[in-house]
């Protein structure tokens, strides 16, 4: 049996569909009305939802149960039909269900495959993609595919030679209810840019002509008598006829049924109404081109679709304004469904071929006892090095036991191919590795969780441990930054956010809190740095900068800031009491992504995932800086949690995947990073901040709504 594909275009205003079998396309009419395009409306009739023309027919008698343009409601809250609240999703399902019934009656066999067009405004990541797929499935289709409307229109048969694949075309879709434009490369599945505009579609033109003729024919536009209503309906019909007729000739005349008066209307009058609307559409086209950074001259052609483009003035106006070759979709009103049908009829273009093998890459596979298991943890990050015998991952086997997956030769992890929690089978290619020398780390650190604190109303932004062993957590709570002792619940300091606080950090001794307040408007952004003493609660200094990329709170009234803007842009240490520069590190070439402080060390990661350790003395004077080895993160792997330093070494607290946190030692220069020293285990929240206690015996991790407090045992 040939694969039958139903192609369905649920437009804002009207719907249309086609059936594709064996590469042959056939437009289908709406059952009941026999129309090739019908209203995207629904109406509640008793307990039933009726759709399309049947809904229009019930509109007079059940106005409150009627809803037009149901697609606009998708993803929003329930709509009320009559006295029932109905999820808009259900309305779309009802429409699709009717379409499926009609298609199956026509085909004589079940139709299980549907291709739905969706507006270009549903970009990648739009929740309505999922809703449309779910609606298709709920309507009984087993295969549901989507295509963006302008992408479909670009595939529609055109009058004249078609646009070759790869052409850059501007889709100009002027419909009854909306104007949409998109820049599309023929054959690609995502538009480059889209835009739409209100107030310049077919109904705006209708309304203008209607108002003009109502005045001329003495039809009341506000009267409420049955006769007034009748006259308005008659006039609306007349406007429609007249507009269609004028797409074929220069002048037309009709008899207005309401009064018997003869109405003569010519194209000049029609064009006078159309021109301001067309100018608006053109502004929208200009906007799309400008946003995409495309000169009009670089566009290979313009495709006209949508019923309103039948009007002769549209083509001449657009051609003149844009100066690019024009093509009319052969049936502009059905361009989307016709183009989507082309896609359905010709599936051969959608094949992805395997990449040729990479000689440097080695696939790593393991035979699991029992054949299958669940991946629990990755021990080496992408980019991380390992030695033969090192554990790369842990799997819970079929038997419930935990198995380590170890390496059988030295190397570096290039790619990991299963997510945590994923099922793995014997022989699956789990890791791609490459050969490299890696530094070996001896010994392991043991961790014990002391406490975990959750504050659902606040974001944990920083934390620290004082020399006396007191834990201090810093939360961002609406318009306040609060420092608290989470064990006692005591509020140590609350700093009201005068304008907007975005960042806050404690120094390594948890004695001072520094906040960075960003004030921003369309002219400029400034950063205002404030420092507070946690014992006295007093503001001890402040600083304003127009640029402030990364910073760290060092304690002793000092902050490390990068890009001070006055001293050459490199990192420097500033005394907040005096606003004076204590010293600069004397290099400017690096752009740092993160700073982590501890002891007298600040570690900064920079572009390309290199890192530098910046050291300073007790007076806060920079001592020096040195590069360290490559950190195991690349552009595709974003699992760096936080940086922290003990009194003499820098560490990384790395979040591998939600929950799994590990401690790694920074590599020496020229080396890749070794495997984790320890897994802290599944820490709730994210790990954006970590700090060791001044005696290095404890660690605190903060992120999300959580602060976790750990005790450490270092290898002797």
């Amino acid at each position, binding site marked *: 049996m040939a694969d039958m594909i139903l192609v369905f275009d649920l437009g804002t205003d009207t719907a249309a569909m086609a059936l594709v079998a064996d590469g042959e396309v056939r437009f289908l009419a709406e059952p009941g009305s026999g129309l090739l395009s019908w209203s995207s409306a629904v109406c509640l009739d008793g307990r039933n939802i009726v759709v399309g023309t049947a809904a229009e027919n019930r509109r007079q008698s059940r106005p409150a149960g*009627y809803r037009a343009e149901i697609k606009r409601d998708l993803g*929003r809250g329930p*709509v009320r039909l009559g006295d029932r609240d109905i999820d808009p999703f259900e309305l779309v399902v009802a429409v699709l269900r009717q379409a499926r019934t009609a298609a199956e009656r026509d085909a004589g066999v079940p139709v299980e495959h549907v291709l739905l067009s969706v507006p270009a405004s549903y970009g990648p*990541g739009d929740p309505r993609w999922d809703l449309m797929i779910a609606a298709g499935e709920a309507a009984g289709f087993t295969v549901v595919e989507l295509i963006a409307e302008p992408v479909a229109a670009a595939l529609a048969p055109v009058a004249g030679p078609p646009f070759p694949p790869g052409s850059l075309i501007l889709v100009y879709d002027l419909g009854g209810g909306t104007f949409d434009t998109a820049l599309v490369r023929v054959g690609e599945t995502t538009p480059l840019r889209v835009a739409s505009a209100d107030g310049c579609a077919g109904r705006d033109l209708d*309304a203008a002509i209607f108002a003009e003729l109502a005045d001329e024919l003495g039809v009341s536009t506000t009267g409420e008598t049955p006769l007034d209503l009748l006259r308005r309906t008659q006039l609306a019909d007349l406007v429609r006829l007249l507009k269609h007729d004028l797409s074929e000739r220069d002048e037309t005349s009709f008899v207005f049924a309401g009064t018997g008066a003869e109405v003569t209307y010519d194209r000049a009058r029609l064009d006078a109404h159309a021109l301001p609307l067309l100018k608006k559409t053109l502004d929208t086209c200009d906007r799309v081109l400008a946003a995409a950074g495309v000169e009009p001259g670089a566009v290979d052609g313009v495709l006209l679709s949508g019923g309103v483009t039948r009007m002769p003035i549209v083509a001449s106006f657009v051609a003149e304004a844009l100066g690019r070759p024009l093509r009319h979709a052969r049936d502009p009103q059905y361009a989307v469904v016709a183009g989507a049908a082309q896609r359905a009829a010709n599936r051969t273009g959608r094949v992805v071929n395997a990449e040729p093998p990479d000689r440097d890459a080695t696939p790593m596979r393991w035979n699991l006892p029992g054949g299958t298991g669940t991946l629990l943890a990755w021990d080496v990050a992408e980019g991380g090095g390992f030695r033969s015998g090192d554990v790369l991952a842990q799997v819970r086997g079929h038997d419930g036991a935990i198995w380590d997956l170890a390496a059988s030769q030295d190397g570096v992890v290039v790619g990991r191919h299963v997510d945590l929690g994923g099922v793995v089978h014997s022989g699956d290619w789990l890791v791609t590795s490459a050969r490299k020398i890696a530094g070996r780390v001896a010994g392991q650190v043991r961790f014990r969780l002391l406490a975990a604190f959750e504050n659902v109303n606040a974001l944990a932004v920083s934390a620290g441990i004082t020399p006396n062993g007191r834990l201090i957590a810093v939360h961002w709570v609406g318009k306040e930054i609060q420092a608290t002792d989470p064990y006692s619940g005591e509020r140590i300091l609350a700093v009201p956010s005068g*304008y907007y606080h975005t960042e806050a950090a404690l120094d390594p001794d948890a004695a001072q809190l520094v906040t960075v307040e960003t004030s921003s408007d369309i*002219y400029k952004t400034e950063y205002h740095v404030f420092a507070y003493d946690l014992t006295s609660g007093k*503001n001890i200094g402040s600083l304003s900068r127009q640029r402030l990329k990364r910073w760290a709170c060092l304690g002793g009234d000092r902050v490390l800031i990068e890009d001070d803007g006055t001293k050459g842009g490199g990192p420097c240490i500033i005394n907040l009491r005096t606003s004076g520069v204590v010293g600069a590190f004397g290099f400017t070439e690096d752009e740092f992504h993160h700073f982590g402080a501890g002891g007298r060390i600040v570690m900064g990661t920079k572009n390309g995932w290199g890192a530098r350790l910046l050291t300073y003395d007790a007076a806060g004077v920079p001592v020096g800086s040195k590069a360290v080895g490559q950190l195991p993160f690349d*552009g595709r792997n974003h699992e760096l949690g936080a940086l922290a330093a003990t009194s003499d070494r820098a560490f990384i607290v790395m979040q591998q995947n939600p929950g799994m946190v590990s401690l790694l030692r920074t590599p020496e220069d020229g080396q890749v990073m070794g495997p984790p020293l320890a897994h802290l285990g599944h820490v709730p929240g994210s790990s954006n901040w970590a700090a060791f206690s001044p005696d290095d015996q404890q660690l605190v991790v903060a992120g999300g709504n959580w602060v976790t407090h750990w005790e450490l045992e270092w290898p002797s």
Partner: protein
Amino acid sequence: MSGGLGYVFAAARGEFAGQPALDRVARVMRGHEARFLAPMSVALVGRVSSGKSTLVNALLGGTYVATGVRELTFTVAHLRQGEPRIVVHFREKGRPVETYPPEEIDALTVNDPAQLEFLRSIDFLDVYVGNDYLRQFAIVDTPGLDAHLGTESQTTLNLLGRTGGDVRESTVTHAAGADAIVLVFTRRGLHEDDVRVLTDFAGADVAGLGPLNTVGALNQVEALWRPGNDPMAEATRVAGNLMSIAEVGRSVYEMIPVAGLLAAAAGTCDAEDLARFEALSKVDPGRLERIVARGDHFATRDYPEITVPAGERKALVDRYSQWGVVLATSLARDGVTTVREMRAELEQRSGLERLRGVLTGHFGNRAGLIKTTRVYAWADDLPYGVRPTLPPRAQAALDRVTRRFTELRLREENEHDELKALRAHYDGQLRLPLGGGAELLRVTGEHGMDPAARLGCAAGTPAAEMLQVTRERRTAWASAAMGVYNGATTNAIRVIQNAYVAVERELEPATA
């Protein structure tokens, strides 16, 4: 609603953290987040002599003392809540901002060449003031917009190396970025410079002035006082005339008469002032009015029946104006006995209360919505603008962020449609049947959000009766929707229907 977006911002920051490919997006987002979280900003715009500074003082409860330096009269100042300090922004691109104690800036003068150099380099100022009103709205204080300045001002301007055109441009740019604009007019009515203000904004790169973001203040009402006449009543007539001028009526939501000087004094009224008004209330009202009207006499001469010394009387008139003194005295006579009551009465009668109410109510409610519109416009472009250049995992993270923004936007879409409908109404694009624009305004909450106000029912109407009205209106609009309408009107009719459904849902539990 803002909590919703705040949450999405926080989640997006989490997604962006540690992803170098998304650093730039994250930075831009921070700007949007900051703007979104900031209190609404209100720009005061008007001619040099329109009393803007007094009005700023009044809005801030009389406590902010404007920098009295002529040198900075031509500089835009953003007044913000915070530790007192002045942040100077420079005209030179890329020059970092500098922070100064307020008194250092106040002491600047064009007469010292070194200071002149500094003054010339200033673009605009952020003035941080400890003031509770600034928690509700930040104020953008702009220079006057007169085409022709007095010689003294012109000399200063020349010294500063600026032209009137520079000043106008700076004013329009800064005001256009504000969430709400107060156009300050004077009692003398529309000056040609005022009309220029209106047209200047039409050309600026903003939605322009409109009743959704602009209110007119007809200032200096106290100067209309004569013995036996009510200056507010006269000012209300002038305001009505102004509103009937097409450019004005189109541009402002309402023209509010304000006695700026009195309003500013109201905020600083203390027990001593009150005692003086009580003492003055012993004088025959008619006689007091006549003496006050003679200006100098009241401030200098001695009268046997007035126990308040002349010097104190002069200070009262300087601060409260003649009308203010007469008004406050009559309030004291009518039994106002506490400072709180006196302040409240004066704020109400000076028009200040109405002005503040419109700013925080009419505009404040919508400023949030307008702000979110800007955020969504940015977020909606992410899939097309940024996404194609990203590595796959960053794309996936961006998609998750886009998804959150879109989900929230869809939940708020009805409110945004409402805003669109109101804009279209004020722009004159709607051809609504039935109750027309008045019904649109009413049902979307112009007169209050409780069902009775939205339905136009008398307070206390039984819920069942109101529910009946709601259903009738919804059906009426559903029927009326069958006509031929332009897109804006179609949207507005849908908005009205949705609004009635919302009222219906609110009333149903009460009648169940």
